[in-house]
């Protein structure tokens, strides 16, 4: 199967000299990224661990309310807000930045310039993140969802995001590759949308006096779009780069990928108001968002068909490639969560799911099953190419994959079922509130188990990352491509010794 699929596209023959040149160029680009990208990646992992601990705490507190109950710092509300901040702006955003910087350099075939200033941006971001999480824990939270950080944290984020965006554009403008690949479109969109979103939300909610229901409207326009126009484009773009690159086959339909990009840009930004469905907002606003959500089926199906057709005949590679395994898991979760999200925006559906744990399950399928898994995927591909070392242990990679994959599945299944019936009972005034609380307890408990599994996976991942950066992995002997030592090409890698980065 694999061979036939590969043979349908004509493979140009390159001379050893051409190969060596291209390999040297790629190695130089990877080397230019090493410092800042590894810095962003490492700090992302630190926040992933912090966020995981906060997540388990918050989850356990919901079924065992006496845990640390006397401590104001560890009360459920603060821990939950700190968890979101640590994961959203720590892990997810910093991982996103690492992924987009490296891919932008590679796809533009341009080296990263002034890497030290980017490290400054990383430091600023981490200071902001630290202030946000500690500020919330100490009691300075704003209680505006996704924007809980106290007023002293956002200036750091804004400065850091500004530098990152400027650098990405600078790399893009220095590009040697004439063609702008679809991943670069997504990245360019994301680095433009996120600062705009963040500034508008900060300005309208905290700095000006937009009180009343305009605030939640701005809040959910931001909260939904920070996922849709910051995490999603970079993650989808990453899948568009990694899947073809790993299996060695161009994407099935480039045309579909471009349709997908523009329909995402247009429709995703209109979704979001369904978070306020039934609330005190004008009816037309929720309707407009429902239309936007339904239209999102177009880009989602475009991406789903495209990735599936690209993978067709290559699914056996999931056994061999850790990066592919995580990325394909993420891509499938993207299709699932988006189709679910489109239907969740419908009124009949939302009347039950709103205000329940069902929505929490949906959110985690999105930010974890989809975005986080793709970020793991890109880390598995990118880090060895930056450090020049292979991963130290395949077993740890397998532990990582299976514990997070099983973890998020339990998480999603438990809270979806529990949340759905919670919603049905909330809609029936004859069901006392006590019964609803008691009914959800086993499902909340299943979430704690799921969270523990996921955290175990994160620990395995952290160990792998630290070992790799500390030089524990086997050093690659050379050749342009890490890991793969195609049997027929052993002679080739010997020829290429001069071309590799020494």
């Amino acid at each position, binding site marked *: 199967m694999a061979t036939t699929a590969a043979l349908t596209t004509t493979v140009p023959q390159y001379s050893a000299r051409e190969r060596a040149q291209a390999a040297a160029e790629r190695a130089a680009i990877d080397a230019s990224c090493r410092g800042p990208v590894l810095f962003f990646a490492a700090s992302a992992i630190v926040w992933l661990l912090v966020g995981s601990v906060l997540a388990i705490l918050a989850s356990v507190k919901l079924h065992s309310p006496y845990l640390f109950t006397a401590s104001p710092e560890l009360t459920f509300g*603060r821990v939950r807000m700190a968890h979101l901040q640590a994961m959203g702006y720590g892990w997810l955003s910093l991982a996103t930045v690492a992924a987009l910087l490296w891919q932008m350099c590679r796809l533009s075939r341009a080296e990263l310039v002034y890497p030290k200033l980017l490290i400054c941006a990383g430091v600023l971001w981490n200071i902001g993140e630290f202030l946000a999480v500690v500020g919330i824990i100490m009691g300075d939270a704003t209680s505006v969802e996704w924007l809980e950080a106290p007023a002293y944290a956002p200036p750091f984020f804004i400065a850091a995001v500004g530098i990152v965006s400027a650098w990405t554009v600078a790399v893009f403008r220095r590009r040697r590759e004439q063609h*702008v690949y679809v991943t670069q479109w997504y990245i360019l969109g994301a680095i433009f949308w996120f600062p705009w979103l963040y500034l508008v939300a900060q300005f309208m909610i905290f700095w000006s006096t937009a009180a*009343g229901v305009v*605030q939640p409207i701005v809040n959910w326009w931001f909260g939904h779009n920070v996922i849709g126009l910051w995490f999603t484009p970079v993650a989808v773009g990453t899948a568009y780069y990694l899947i073809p690159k790993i299996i060695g086959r161009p994407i099935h339909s480039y045309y579909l990928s471009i349709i997908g990009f*523009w329909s995402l840009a247009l429709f995703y930004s209109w979704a979001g108001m369904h978070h306020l469905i039934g609330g*005190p907002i004008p009816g037309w606003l929720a309707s407009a968002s429902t239309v936007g959500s339904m239209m999102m089926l177009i880009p989602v199906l475009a991406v789903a068909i495209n990735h599936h057709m690209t993978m067709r005949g290559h699914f056996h590679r999931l056994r061999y490639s850790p990066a592919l395994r995580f990325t394909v898991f993420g891509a499938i979760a993207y299709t699932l969560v988006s189709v679910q999200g489109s239907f969740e925006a419908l009124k009949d559906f939302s009347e039950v799911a709103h205000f329940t744990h069902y929505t929490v399950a949906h959110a985690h399928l999105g930010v974890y099953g989809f975005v986080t898994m793709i970020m793991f995927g890109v880390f598995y591909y990118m880090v060895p190419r930056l450090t020049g070392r292979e991963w130290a242990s395949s077993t740890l990679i397998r532990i990582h994959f299976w514990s997070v994959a099983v973890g998020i599945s339990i998480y999603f299944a438990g809270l979806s079922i529990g949340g759905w019936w919670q919603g049905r009972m909330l809609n029936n005034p004859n069901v006392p509130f006590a019964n609803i*609380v*008691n009914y959800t307890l086993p499902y*909340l408990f299943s979430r704690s188990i799921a969270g523990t599994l996921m955290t175990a996976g994160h620990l395995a991942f952290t160990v792998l990352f630290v070992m790799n950066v500390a030089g524990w992995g086997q050093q690659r002997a050379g050749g342009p491509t890490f890991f793969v030592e195609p049997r027929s090409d052993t002679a080739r890698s010997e020829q290429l010794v001069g071309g590799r980065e020494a």
Partner: protein
Amino acid sequence: MDRGMVIFLGALLTFSSSWLGLIVFPFQQLGYEQPYQKSESDDPYPQPLQGIALAGKRVYQANGCMYCHSQQVRSERFGNWWDENGEERTGADIKRSWGLRRTVSRDYIYDNPTMLGTMRTGPDLSNIGVRNPSAMWHHTHLLNPRSANPWSIMPSFPYLYKREKIVGYRSDKALLLGREWTVQPGYRWRPSEQEWDELLRERGSTILAQVLANSPAETFDLTTAAGKKRLLDFWLTTPEEDYQIVPTTDGEALVAYLLALRKAEVPLPEAKE
């Protein structure tokens, strides 16, 4: 051909369409609403928060209350269920007496931030001040929600209260709770069997007299384990003699804020259905 510019313009265009549609238009439509006044003699509704209630809103924010409690009442036509006769009914929020009517944008003009909420792990609080106007109930519930609702999974908030030695006489603000809730604020205290035996040995007669003062009809056979346990159960429900629990400034402020939550009470013309 510079495709970067195309992507930039396209991203700008698509995004500003939603910015206009979802932000600028609603701001124009809702940003300038005025309070409602039926006649000259009536007080305008709503009223901005004042004084200690305003400080209480900060406590509500800082502790993330809105991550479990919404502040909106949905329409009589929202959501459905089937009653005993198999008939389809709607509007659970109002039937749960979470408000007299649905909330509309005018209810929120002075809210900042507007904590509509997205989760109902706990009940809605739009008009908790009307539904449950007892400050003392809120204090006992906040100190340990299990003291009011045994099934509750809400955190205790002992750090909004302080346990202090009574000097002179008990304060008016002291919480009216049995010692099981006050010995270890936030938790439910119960001595172990050995501890209870020791307590009985040391001050058994005082304890007995105190319990009998509260429920004179009872008799206790202290020679049996069952009798000792029964005395313990009664003793735990009596208040501590030397200590009292009083709200801190934050605790008082939070309850003042809760009592000021009186949305969906005054009728508004636009909320009619």
